[in-house]
Structures are given as structure tokens and as C-alpha cells.
């Protein structure tokens, strides 16, 4: 129920921002479409903590900021590789451990790896990720486990909730 309400709230804000009109007729139509969407989503059983991770709270915001910084750094590195004449790539495929307890945490970790240029998640299986990296630097940056720790920290509280 909490998730349905927050989904409705997010949809309403989105609708208002995108339409930019505040007339009675249009607002009524907006309310109707938001209600219909929430109803359909509930019938489809997709209104849950995974599609709508409000429990992450502010830690998600700080994580995003850190991730943006990482994206900028690795994008610069990959761009440097591409513009050089001889393109010093050293592609490799390796596995890293994902220490998150929940599936949501695993998904966030795998997608963060894919989102940073230079590394792409190929497979996700029982706590291990198969990753393709374009060179040594990208590989070492991932193997020191910094990103893994941060994702676990962000999704950490939730993992305990799920266990209980």
C-alpha cells in the first residue's frame, strides 16, 4: 500500500511537471490517468520494493553522486584510449564477488558496473558477476571492491529487513 501511494505521488508530480497546465479539466484527466496506472500496476503485481525502492532514501542520492564522479573518471579514461593512434586496449573477462544480500543490491551493483564506461557486466550468477573490462586500469578499479562496498552499504539496511 505504501508503495502504491508513493508510486501515485511520483506519477502525479511527473504528470504536473510534464504538462505544465493547471486547469480543472486537465487536472481531472491527470488524476484519472494516475489512478488508472496505479490500478493496472497493482493488478500486474509490480508495485513492490524492487520497482520502487523508496527505502533506500538519502543513501541512494549520495551513492548517485559518487557514481556520477566514477562515470566521469572512467569515461575520460576510455576516451583517452580511443583517441590514441595505437589504442592501448587490454580487454579481459573476469569474475568479481557481489557481497549484496538482496537481488535488488545485485542488480544495482551490476548496472553500476555497466554504467561506468570501460566495464560491462556479462553474467550475474549466484553472487558472482562476470565482467568484461577494456584495460588493466578498469579491471583493477573494480577488483579493489570499492564499488561493491558502497552498493552493499547503500542496500545494507534493506538486506537485514528482508531476512527478518
Amino acid at each position, binding site marked *: 500500500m505504501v508503495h502504491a501511494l508513493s508510486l501515485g505521488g511520483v506519477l502525479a508530480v511527473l504528470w504536473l511537471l510534464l504538462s505544465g*497546465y493547471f486547469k480543472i*479539466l*486537465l487536472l481531472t484527466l491527470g488524476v484519472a490517468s494516475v489512478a488508472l496506472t496505479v490500478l493496472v500496476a497493482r493488478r500486474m*503485481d509490480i508495485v*513492490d520494493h524492487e520497482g520502487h525502492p523508496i527505502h533506500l532514501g538519502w543513501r541512494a542520492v549520495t551513492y548517485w553522486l559518487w557514481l556520477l564522479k566514477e562515470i566521469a573518471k572512467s569515461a575520460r579514461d576510455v576516451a583517452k584510449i580511443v583517441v590514441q593512434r595505437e589504442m592501448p586496449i587490454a580487454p579481459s573477462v573476469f569474475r568479481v564477488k557481489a557481497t549484496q544480500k538482496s537481488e535488488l543490491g545485485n542488480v544495482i551493483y551490476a548496472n553500476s558496473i555497466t554504467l561506468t564506461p570501460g566495464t560491462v557486466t556479462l553474467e550475474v550468477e549466484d553472487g558472482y558477476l562476470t565482467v568484461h573490462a577494456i584495460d588493466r586500469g578498469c579491471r583493477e578499479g573494480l577488483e579493489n571492491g570499492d564499488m561493491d562496498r558502497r552498493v552493499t552499504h547503500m542496500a545494507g539496511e534493506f538486506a537485514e529487513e528482508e531476512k527478518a
Partner: protein
Amino acid sequence: MITLGNDVILASDILNVVLLVLMLITALSLIFLRNLFAIIMMSGIFSLTAAVLYVVWDSVDVSFTEASVGAGISTVLMLATLALTAPEEKRIRQRHWASLAVVTVTGALLGYATIDMPRYGDPEAPVNKHVAPRYIYESGKEVGPPNMVTSTLAAYRGYDTLGETTVIFTAAAGVITIIGAARRRRRTSADVSKVREV
């Protein structure tokens, strides 16, 4: 009323030319490719380019449709069709010169017909003097929605749109019945309870 500077118009012209060249290259590669799968991907690029062109030509609603139908749904439908056929196009040995002649003549005639058309965006053109001014000036008062296209489609041409929607709905239902019916699998109660648990 927004008036655009000459440099903006020039930039739009260059954009037109470059996009049309990209489209031409895509179309040529569509002709020469043999792998049907690759052809589907190239036609995706074709409709993406077309959507940008529609935006450049100010027909935003058409671009919307191209975005959702051309690049989204039709790729999926073509793939579903491909699942029923072979992945490679058959090689054609003989050449159909008569067909080529018909196509060339039709193309030339269509090209010739464009000479008689009014200039693009000409306010004196018949199409802009008939009912368009009423839609533009009165639709806000008469119908209400801020988007003129919406009020034209839903009110002024309401019956027409209803007919179109019926046709599209019937077509979609038919396609789903033919292609999708075999794949459907009812969720068992075990599946549902598992979903609920999570």
C-alpha cells in the same frame, strides 16, 4: 509568434540535407544486405532518422508516432515474423526489368508533381486557408485542450478518428491472435504464490 534568424534557417536546411543523406545511405544498405536480421536493425535506424526529420519539419505528433510505432513496435513485430521464416533473403537470379520501369516512371511522375506544390509552409497555400485557421484560432474556446492536434483529432474529426482506432485495434488484435497466441502460457498458482512471497 517566433521569428527565426537566417542562420537558424540555414542550419535547419543543412540538417535536412545531412539527415536525408544518412537516410539514403541506410536505404541503400537495406537494398544490398541479405541477412534479414541486419535489415530489421537498419530499418530501425531508418525510422529513427525519419523521426528526427519530422521534428525538423515541425510535425511533432507524427514524430511521436514514428518513435513509438516505427522504432519500437514494428521492430518487435518484424522479429516475431522473422521467427516464422528463414533468416536469409532468397537470392533472385532473374531481373524484373518491367518492374524497374514501372517504379522509375512512378517515381519520376511523383517528382514532377512536386513542382506544382506550393512552397513549404506557404501561408497562401490552399491547405492553410480552408479550415486550418478556424482550428488554430477557435479550438481553444470551442474544445479546450491546449494541444490543437488533440482537439482536431478528438473533436473536429472525431468520427474519423474513431474509425481509424477501430481499424488499428482490429489489426492489432488479429496480429496478436496469429503471432502471440501460441506462446501464451497461463501462470500456475505456484508461480503466483512465489511472486507474492517476494
